[in-house]
């Protein structure tokens, strides 16, 4: 859409959408809603950071249950994870070269869930959502009000830039939303610019006099507003870090943290290698809302599809870095499932509740009048994924160019922080993922046999 200079597509209509069995959909919704409304009293937001610290120091990890995350979402929204993620090593700091040792609890306290919630005037629900993780917040400055900044936005404009000024984050979220620009890409591109400035690749003359240093919130605001207006250095950076690095030269690409030109979100593959794999294998690269090992744990798909690998309730963290067929099957299941979820208009946070609690497949059967097993819908997801991959290849896009920057996958590994010493066996994990889909393990090209099996034509016609 960006290439077509298209910001959005709006569809409107007055006809009611018919479904096969409205009563059954309602019955299923009421069952699901019982889980959504389950909300015990919980820890104060200030404790979240210490939970993250505990998760960092323990050698073992509990399989994540999405019901727990739902409780956090309902109370604070996605910002519930702000401090916890920094502490446990999930959120990248200082353009992916830092850690909680650089941006510790005293810094991340500025974006504590309770600190953000203090601004919240009323909850905001997306269409038809019983959870309502969003919010409308009061803020200082000329706008006065904004949507509650999401986790990704807060950390991309906060920890990634070492910025502790919460008001600047509120302001920038509103500025970027109004411009139709992505907060993750904007934050990551500013992080790239700051590191270029630190390395002497960009000078004060290049930055129109801005002192681009870590945590300098005034300079960060000025730079992003220049990007929105495509003014001076802002014009150079407005197309993202990959394009800017190409124009700057001088090995600036070493500081551009992207996958296939897409700036990376605030989830560190060195903490959960599943993210690293999905950043590289998805036909639209750099996505954090498709799969991860933690997502697989929360989807609980094995409870409705016995052929999928089960997750142990407690395991050693080292297990996450072992590249084996089970991890590939988990990653492939996430991709297939999220294609179904996205096509059905469901929400990823909703399906985190677990397959037994949120009846996605049963809803689809009730809506369509089909009586298909979950495996049938997963095959639809597989077909979508393969079609997207085939489209890229037909357009001359090489999936192998989607590898994230070396720093992001632990090459070289960090020497301090939660993710010290960790790197991802991307070669094997990517190759195993391609194999799961029946794509060529080296090139990622869907084979003719796979295309035919999925009813996508005779290979070469499409690819």
């Amino acid at each position, binding site marked *: 859409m960006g290439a077509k200079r298209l910001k959005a597509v709006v569809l409107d209509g*007055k*006809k*009611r959408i018919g479904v096969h069995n409205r009563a059954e*959909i*309602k019955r299923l*919704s*009421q069952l699901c*809603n019982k889980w*959504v*409304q389950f909300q015990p009293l919980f820890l104060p937001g200030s404790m979240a950071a210490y939970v993250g610290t505990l998760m960092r120091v323990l050698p073992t990890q509990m399989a994540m249950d999405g019901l727990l995350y739902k409780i956090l979402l309902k109370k604070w929204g996605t910002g519930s994870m702000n401090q916890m993620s920094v502490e446990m090593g999930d959120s990248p700091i200082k353009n992916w070269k830092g850690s909680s040792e650089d941006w510790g609890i005293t810094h991340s306290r500025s974006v504590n869930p309770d600190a953000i919630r203090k601004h*919240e*005037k*009323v*909850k905001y*629900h997306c*269409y*038809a*959502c*019983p959870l*309502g993780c969003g*919010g409308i917040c009061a803020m200082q400055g000329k706008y006065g009000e904004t949507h509650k900044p999401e986790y990704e936005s807060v950390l991309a404009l906060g920890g990634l830039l070492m910025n502790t000024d919460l008001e600047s984050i509120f302001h920038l979220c509103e500025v970027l939303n109004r411009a139709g620009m992505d907060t993750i890409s904007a934050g990551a591109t500013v992080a790239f610019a700051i590191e270029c400035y630190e390395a002497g690749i960009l000078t004060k003359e290049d930055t129109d006099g801005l002192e681009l240093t870590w945590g300098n919130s005034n300079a960060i605001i000025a730079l992003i507003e220049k990007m929105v207006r495509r003014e001076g250095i802002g014009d150079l950076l407005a197309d993202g870090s990959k394009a800017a690095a190409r124009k700057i030269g001088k090995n600036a690409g070493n500081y551009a943290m992207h996958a296939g030109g897409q700036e990376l979100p605030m989830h560190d593959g060195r903490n959960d290698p599943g993210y690293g794999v999905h950043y590289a294998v998805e036909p639209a690269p750099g996505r954090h809302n498709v799969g991860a090992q933690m997502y697989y744990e929360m989807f609980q798909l094995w409870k409705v599809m016995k052929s999928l690998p089960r997750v142990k309730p407690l395991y050693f963290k080292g297990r996450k870095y072992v590249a084996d067929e089970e991890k590939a099957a988990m990653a492939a299941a996430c991709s297939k499932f999220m294609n179904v979820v996205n096509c059905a208009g469901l929400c990823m946070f909703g399906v985190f509740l677990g397959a037994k609690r949120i009846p996605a497949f049963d809803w689809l059967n009730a809506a369509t009048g089909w009586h298909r097993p979950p495996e049938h819908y997963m095959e639809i997801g597989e077909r979508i994924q393969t079609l997207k991959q085939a489209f890229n290849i037909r357009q001359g896009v090489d999936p192998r160019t989607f590898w994230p920057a070396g720093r992001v996958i632990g090459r070289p590994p960090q020497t301090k922080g939660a993710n010290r010493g960790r790197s991802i066996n991307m070669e094997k994990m990517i190759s195993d993922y391609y194999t799961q889909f029946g794509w060529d393990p080296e090139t990622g090209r869907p084979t003719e046999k796979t295309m035919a099996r999925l009813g996508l034509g005779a290979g070469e016609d499409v690819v």
Partner: protein
Amino acid sequence: MSYRIIDICNGCGACRRLCPVDAIRGEKNTLHAVVHDMCIECGACGRVCPVRAVTDPFGTVCTMLKKSEWERPHFDSKICMSCGICIDACPVHCLSLSGAASSNDPHGYPYMAEGKKCIGCGFCARECPVDAVTMVAP
């Protein structure tokens, strides 16, 4: 399936003026007709027809009711989960979401913002996934 206008229509135009999706066509004092593909089956035309010239999708002749007798939605905030489906379902946009209910409850709840617009169709009640909306006669 849609509502229909039969040939005893006197062309008063009351149904055409009320129809929320402009699905009724006809000149003043001539037989009106429902454009079937556009009809959303809200039944408003049947409730305002003074000569009982409208039939519902089952062929039953509709009875005129005074506007003050039309059913109106009642919202149970103890059951409501603030999803907003009722607001989106309303074809005349007469519902709205309130501000935060209280300092302890940051959720907004649906309420009748423009009562005069309500056509008593009951879509809000039918679409509510948790039956928090009921249609009540005044």
